[in-house]
């Protein structure tokens, strides 16, 4: 595989707009328009396809090191490439936890060796995700991995003082704390959204207020100390309203929503099928409408997958015993097309902003040699994805690059599909298959 492959993409709709040609040469976008020099180029007829900048996921669980039975950096980034991603942020809840420079550098190197997507490790906020004392955030920031996003994801940094200190401390290296907003006492043993349905099913409820209370507190803390705050997987109508109000006041908060919270509702839990068990839980149809509206009007800045692979035995069991989490990388763009583009809530330029430029900015990987989330313009890195918006497919979890099969969309018909992904000019996916 040559690093310096030349490809001429012809007739693709740039950000869903007018068709144009795109020349990828020497790892950068060498030309945009008509009549480009195609010397030595592989021609890719992209008539009818939409071209977007390579997608950037701010929230991915790659499971390596520690749970290589569920996913590895290689298989996870292959799944990312299949989903049109050219960069992923690998969450810290591995075994061992990514709370030292050594672990984040290991994950970062594994990503470089795999070569399917840039792997940007997320550092743990607290040692062992235990919420007791700060991990060496500076060492992780200064490491080869250049960590800028810190999160105890899976656990909330619930101690207000610890959260305040973390928000302050990461300012020294322009970091951001990504909070998993879950008040722990309100959610002890919680199994699903607290609602009429949880009462009927006899499953312990996870109330919306447990998310909203932490988001409100952390926005106030971030404003107080002048730090930026990122909210992971926002899932409720009330959370959207709180973040909207904060942004109206100019407070430095960003937020993400997952594809599954854009599409699926708690009604699926009535099957007691643990594929639908996720944290935060699937919510009501009103919450789904609210997060879609929030994503459309910019209250929610980005879509992040929270791709969470689990082996079969952790899902093929009674609900209480099952693991939280679902796959998301390979279906993200289809779910976003289905819920946001095909509904008229967002155009493709908006999708590019929310799935590429904005997550790269929040993760501070939008500059430098390996910049991500850049515009489709001459001289920019050739991180490009081609999407066929007219395609449709029935999701088959066995046809996945991921090692895991906990796909909540199994059997659903979803629109769109990734035809090709380029990482700095080199195809990682071609004709809808891994290269």
């Amino acid at each position, binding site marked *: 595989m040559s690093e310096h492959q030349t490809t001429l993409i012809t007739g693709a709709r740039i950000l869903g707009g007018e068709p144009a040609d795109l020349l990828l040469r020497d790892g950068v976008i060498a030309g945009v328009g008509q009549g480009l020099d195609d010397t030595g180029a592989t021609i890719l007829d992209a008539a009818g396809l939409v071209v977007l900048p390579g997608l950037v996921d701010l929230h991915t669980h790659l499971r390596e090191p520690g749970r290589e039975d569920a996913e590895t950096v290689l298989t996870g980034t292959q799944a990312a490439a299949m989903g049109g991603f050219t960069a992923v942020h690998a969450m810290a809840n591995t075994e061992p936890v990514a709370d030292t420079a050594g672990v984040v550098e290991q994950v970062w190197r594994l990503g470089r060796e795999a070569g399917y997507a840039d792997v940007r490790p997320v550092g743990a906020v607290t040692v062992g995700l235990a919420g007791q004392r700060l991990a060496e955030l500076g060492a992780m920031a200064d490491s080869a991995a250049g960590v800028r996003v810190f999160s105890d994801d899976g656990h909330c940094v619930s101690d207000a003082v610890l959260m305040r200190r973390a928000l302050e401390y990461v300012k020294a290296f322009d970091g951001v704390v990504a909070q998993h907003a879950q008040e722990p006492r309100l959610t002890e043993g919680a199994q699903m959204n607290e*609602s009429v349905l949880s009462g009927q099913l*006899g499953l312990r409820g996870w109330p919306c207020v447990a998310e909203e209370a932490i988001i409100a507190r952390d926005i106030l803390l971030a404003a107080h100390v002048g730090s930026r705050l990122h909210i992971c997987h926002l899932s409720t109508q009330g959370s959207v309203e709180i973040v909207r109000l904060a942004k109206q006041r100019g407070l430095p908060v960003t937020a993400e929503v997952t594809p599954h919270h854009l599409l699926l509702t708690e009604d699926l839990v009535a*099957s007691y099928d643990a594929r639908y068990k996720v944290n935060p839980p699937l919510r009501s149809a009103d919450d789904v409408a609210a997060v879609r509206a929030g994503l459309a009007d910019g209250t929610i800045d980005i879509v992040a997958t929270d791709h969470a692979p689990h082996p079969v035995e952790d899902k*093929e069991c*009674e609900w209480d*015993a099952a693991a939280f989490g679902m796959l998301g990388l390979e279906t993200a763009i289809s779910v976003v097309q289905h819920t946001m583009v095909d509904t008229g809530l967002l155009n493709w330029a908006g999708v590019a902003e929310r799935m590429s430029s904005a997550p790269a900015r929040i993760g501070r990987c939008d500059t430098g040699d390996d910049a991500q989330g850049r515009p489709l313009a001459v001289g920019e890195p050739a991180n490009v994805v081609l999407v066929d918006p007219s395609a449709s497919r029935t999701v088959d979890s066995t046809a996945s690059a991921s090692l895991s099969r906990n796909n909540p969309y199994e059997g659903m018909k979803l629109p769109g599909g990734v035809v090709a992904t380029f990482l700095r000019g080199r195809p990682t996916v071609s004709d809808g298959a891994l290269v």
Partner: protein
Amino acid sequence: MIRHLLSTADLSRADALLILDTAEEMARLTAGRSVKKLPTLRGRTVVNLFFEDSTRTRTSFEVAAKRLSADVVNFSAKGSSVSKGESLKDTALTLAAMGADGVVVRHAASGAAYRLATSGWIDARVLNAGDGTHEHPTQALLDAFTIRRHLGPLDGRRIVIVGDVIHSRVARSNVALLSTLGADVVLVAPPTLLPLGVEQWPVEVAYDLDGVLADADAVMMLRVQRERMNAAFFPSAREYSRRYGLDVRRFARLPESAIVLHPGPMNRGMEITADVADSPRSVIVEQVSNGVYVRMAALYLMLAGADDDVMSAQEGAA
């Protein structure tokens, strides 16, 4: 008739009445006889799969199955559900390989019976003997059976259920079944022990027990664990008893004809006092014997001629 008995919400009025009528038939055929056995389930295997201790319920199902001449296997899997070694799935596959026709399952996880019945792991009929805080259908059926024996048809009868509704599978199963049978159900509990959204259930809700006793036809007291006060569901056992316990003073406010039920095991002195529990209008011991008839009926309807038309199977027994 339904294939599995997982939730009383799945029972139509006709299904529910068929089970109750069949239970009457079982009582008539076995009560007071020296030989209590019927040959109807000879050659069928019923497995009691108990992931949670419950000597009472397990014994009741065992007696019921044996009176129908079924082969009964007690499979205690306590504590093994969550450990990787013996999953619910592996247990199901094991039972399937052993040729179980019916599986009576008790599990601490809500939905476990549903999962066992719908995951394709096993072909047997599944009877839910209590799943977490979800349902306990045969308990509700035996409660309805007991009330009907004393008060006649349930239509328009006012049944008051008191106590730890949020954690009670008995309450959930009773709410669905009793309302299907036309009764008016009143739930009484401190607000902390009622689930979110209870106002959308087909019930009346009250926080004051004294106010609902005067026109009650039956009062069902739920077991309340003293430990709940440690999670701030109520301040103390004494305060709970004062506000929600059924003592002689409250008992006196009930109509003369009203009966008192309790699914057991009782916390005497907590939700019910000894003199009420042992009074002639307490039907608590009777509930236990009725449990056997109702479970016989359910096992019979689901397993006798499982492949035939149910009505013809029932005619064959009559």
